[in-house]
């Protein structure tokens, strides 16, 4: 900001004028944008005025506001009076005496008439404001409805009396016969009860609420875990030497493969045992294993960092991995057992639930084994190489960095190319990842060769950022062209799935091989320049990846996710649960992570200074601070999920929405009104409850 000079008022006056002009221009621009929006959204003042539309909307609204919630049984009350066709000589209308007990009675004036003549029918003591109809009973006991004012039914007045004009029917050969007039009234009897529509809506509403509850509950754990990776303040500081990272990275797929095969075998074995397919010997073995786990857990802390200690702790890690997988298998097996044992009543419901969880564990054992295997192997690899990597000379560090970097780069691009092969536009992933790697190389080279570790100046930083962009764009273009991504995107075709390189259990296509080649070169160059001792900002990379994924997922509306899940698991609440869960994970992950970013960092610093490790710091310095806001935001999300689950049925995702859509399509607005009313009630109750709970915690 420049400051106005008080000694020369002229420039400040012209500045004020400029300001005014700018404001005017801004207002004009806003006006144009607004006017354009008016046109784009087809705002039309004439159409709502059309009489047909007005009638339609009035009717629809009236029906919506008369929801078909309650119904009642009716008893028919009939009162009749004789009637003479063609008045005989000297006929006099007999006087009507009101019954003493106050029951309904009617009178007709005159009590005789010829066809087509009009008589007046009056009635007293009827139920007020209730429909009634008049029936003509002729000499052969034939009954005909006589219309009143052109309608079959008429409404009895507020005091329970009526007076209507009836035309005497023309009936062949009825001259001189004695007929009768009967007034029937449907009188409500008994207590009002819910209509079938209401029952159906209530049923679906329960489904809706549980759909939202389950989706919210399932999403809590994944989003809580993701939120730590998406919290800038926790991740920013996480750095790792490139050497360790690359060792981890090359061991990761190996650990995943080995773990997926061997560890999942262990887990599967325990699972089969626990689910009741094993004998006494195995069960004893199992108990010993659990006992061993408990003992091992007590002996784990290390206090020295000699190589033997590392070796011992590495062995412990491997044993720990086996034990953890075995425990997971045990839990899964017990779940399956419970699922098979309990099938009736409430235990049956619980059994079904626990059984499904067991089945879920059984299905994901290869993945769990792989993940734990990867974790264990990378841990062991890091522990055993960390000292060696620290002591090597710079030249060796470059050679190793280049070799491991090449391997890591090939793995990364190989994986993204494999993903990219599955859909034409996913092919963009490989050039993007390659570009990120490429963007790091030139600035790194600059830092190493030109700057020689001196402090960066402003111009250095500018230059490095320019170099970064040049590298990014160049590598992107190169990869984009090499992999023919553009053609694939235009034509919607996938790269050919040929076998260019056959490894045991893994066939690699030309496309993936090309990507791996690019990754190899980029990784090798980058690794060689950086050397294994460079600090790599793992935390920031994980942070950006998590944030990108969360933001991307959040941008996809749950209704669209619902559409996809309906294709996968069929119409019904399960598809809705999956759609809402996925969206909730993305959205809660973001909300949670913002809570982490808002915490007081003092306790973190304090616990780090006591020698606590990262897990302990998070458990004791972060978790206590985030529990209240997490509860509040989970409530908030449940609230949103209930709203969403009321409409997820529109795409077949279960809940009350499906019913609502049907009723609207069939133009049954009174039934639709019931659903709308139910939604409004549930949503406002939840709105209130979640606000109350949030107020307590935030």
């Amino acid at each position, binding site marked *: 900001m420049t400051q106005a000079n008080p000694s020369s008022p002229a420039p400040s006056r012209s500045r004020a004028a400029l300001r005014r002009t700018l404001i005017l221009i801004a207002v004009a621009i806003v006006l144009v944008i607004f006017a354009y929006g008016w046109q784009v959204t087809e705002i039309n003042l004439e159409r709502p005025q059309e009489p047909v539309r007005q009638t339609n909307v009035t009717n629809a609204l009236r029906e919506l506001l008369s929801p078909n919630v309650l119904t009642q049984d009716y008893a028919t009350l009939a009162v009749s009076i004789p009637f003479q066709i063609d008045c005989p000589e000297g006929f006099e209308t007999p006087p009507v005496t009101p019954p003493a007990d106050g029951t309904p009675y009617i009178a007709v004036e005159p009590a005789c008439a010829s066809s087509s003549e009009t008589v007046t029918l009056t009635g007293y003591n009827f139920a007020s404001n209730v429909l009634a109809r008049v029936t003509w009973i002729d000499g052969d006991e034939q009954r005909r409805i006589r219309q009143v004012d052109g309608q079959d039914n008429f409404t009895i007045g507020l005091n329970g009396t009526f007076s209507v004009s009836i035309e005497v029917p023309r009936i062949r050969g009825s001259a001189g016969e004695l007929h009768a007039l009967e007034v029937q009234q449907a009188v409500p009897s008994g207590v009002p009860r819910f209509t079938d529509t209401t029952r159906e809506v209530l049923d679906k509403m329960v489904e809706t609420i549980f759909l939202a509850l389950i989706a919210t509950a399932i999403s809590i754990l994944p989003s809580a875990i993701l939120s730590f990776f998406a919290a800038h303040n926790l991740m920013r500081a996480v750095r790792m030497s490139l050497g360790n990272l690359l060792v981890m990275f090359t061991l990761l797929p190996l650990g995943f493969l080995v773990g997926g095969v061997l560890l999942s075998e262990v887990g599967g074995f325990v699972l089969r045992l626990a689910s009741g397919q094993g004998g006494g010997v195995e069960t004893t073995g199992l108990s010993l294993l659990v006992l061993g786990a408990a003992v091992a857990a007590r002996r784990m802390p290390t206090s020295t960092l000699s190589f033997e200690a590392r070796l011992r702790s590495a062995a412990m890690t491997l044993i720990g991995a086996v034990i953890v997988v075995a425990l997971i298998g045990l839990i899964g097996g017990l779940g399956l057992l419970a699922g098979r044992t309990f099938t009736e009543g409430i235990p049956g419901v619980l059994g079904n639930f626990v059984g499904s969880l067991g089945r879920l564990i059984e299905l994901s054992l290869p993945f769990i084994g792989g993940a734990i295997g990867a974790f264990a192997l990378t841990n062991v690899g890091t522990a055993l190489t960390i000292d060696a990597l620290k002591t090597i000379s710079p030249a060796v560090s470059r050679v190793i960095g280049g070799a491991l970097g090449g391997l890591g780069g090939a793995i990364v691009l190989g994986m993204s190319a494999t993903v990219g092969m599955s859909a034409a536009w996913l092919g963009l992933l490989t050039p993007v990842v390659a570009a990120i790697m490429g963007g790091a190389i030139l600035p790194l080279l600059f830092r190493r060769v030109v700057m020689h570790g001196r402090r960066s100046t402003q111009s250095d930083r500018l230059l490095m950022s320019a170099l970064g962009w040049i590298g990014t764009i160049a590598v992107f273009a190169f990869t984009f062209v090499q992999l023919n991504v553009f053609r694939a995107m235009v034509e919607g075709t996938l790269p050919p799935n040929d076998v260019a390189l056959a490894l045991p259990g893994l066939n690699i296509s030309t496309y993936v091989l090309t990507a791996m080649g690019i990754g190899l070169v980029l990784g090798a160059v980058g690794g060689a320049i950086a050397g294994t001792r460079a600090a790599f900002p793992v935390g920031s990379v994980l942070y950006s990846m998590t944030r990108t994924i969360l933001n991307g997922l959040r941008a996809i509306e749950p209704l669209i996710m619902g559409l996809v899940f309906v294709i996968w698991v069929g119409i019904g609440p399960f598809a809705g649960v999956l759609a809402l869960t996925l969206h909730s994970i993305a959205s809660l992950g973001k909300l949670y992570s913002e809570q982490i970013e808002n915490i007081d960092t003092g306790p973190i610093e304090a616990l780090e200074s*006591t020698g606590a490790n990262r897990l*302990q710091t998070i458990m004791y310095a972060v978790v206590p601070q985030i529990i209240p806001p997490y509860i509040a935001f989970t409530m908030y999300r449940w609230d949103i999920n209930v709203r969403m689950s009321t409409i997820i049925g529109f795409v077949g995702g279960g809940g009350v929405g499906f019913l609502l859509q049907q009723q609207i399509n069939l133009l049954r607005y009174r039934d639709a009104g019931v659903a709308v009313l139910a939604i409004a009630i549930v949503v406002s109750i939840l709105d209130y409850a979640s606000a109350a709970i949030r107020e307590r915690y935030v």
Partner: protein
Amino acid sequence: MLKIENLTKIYDNGFKALDNVSLEIPDGQFVAIIGLSGSGKSTLLRCINRLIDPTEGRIIWNGIDITAATDDELRLIRRRIGMIFQQFNLVKRASVLTNVMSGRLGYLNPVYALFNYFPSKERDRAMKALTRVGIPEKARNRASALSGGQQQRVGIARALMQEPEMMLADEPVASLDPATSHSVMKYLELLNKEDGLTVLCSLHFLSLARAYSDRVIALKDGRIEYDGPPSDIDDDRFRQIYGEEAVEVEIH
């Protein structure tokens, strides 16, 4: 013995907070670090346990190079160095006992943390530490329910759980009133005299430094301006450290 050699810290934004600082502190000394706000006191203390990574220089403690330690080694070093803070840095929603016990985490199996489990022996140790700082009856209270002085004593108890050989105190009494300040300083003095802990304590008031320390190190713009016994700081020296217009205030 703590040996600091040519320590320089340049922050990411290019600011040089420490400029070639070298020091030797024998075991058992009570060292006060003084200097104007922004002179680099906190930066120096945080470099010692590597809450901040120094840009250049070495810190050697009992023969171990702290600046070269890996993450694992660093944790083993840190658990022998206690630290207390101006803002106490307690977890306000947690109980006093949990806050104190969390000082022991470096010695415990990390798996315990997942289940919020502390062995009963650590509970006893925490109660002993609380008794030592005079507030055993507050163990069950929430940390936020304590007064500032009491919170700082919880901070000391937490550091005691580490069974430290050295104590770093970053303006431990700057948020406290004079009387409470003295009571907290007396606990530090006690640890120094009874347990033989080396104490490095940054202070705002020279009078406190005079009352409790064996040695004063004055920083100015990241450099050592004075290093010697507190009694040798006369008016001239004082003005050198704090600037021409400064006047010494007493704190009783």
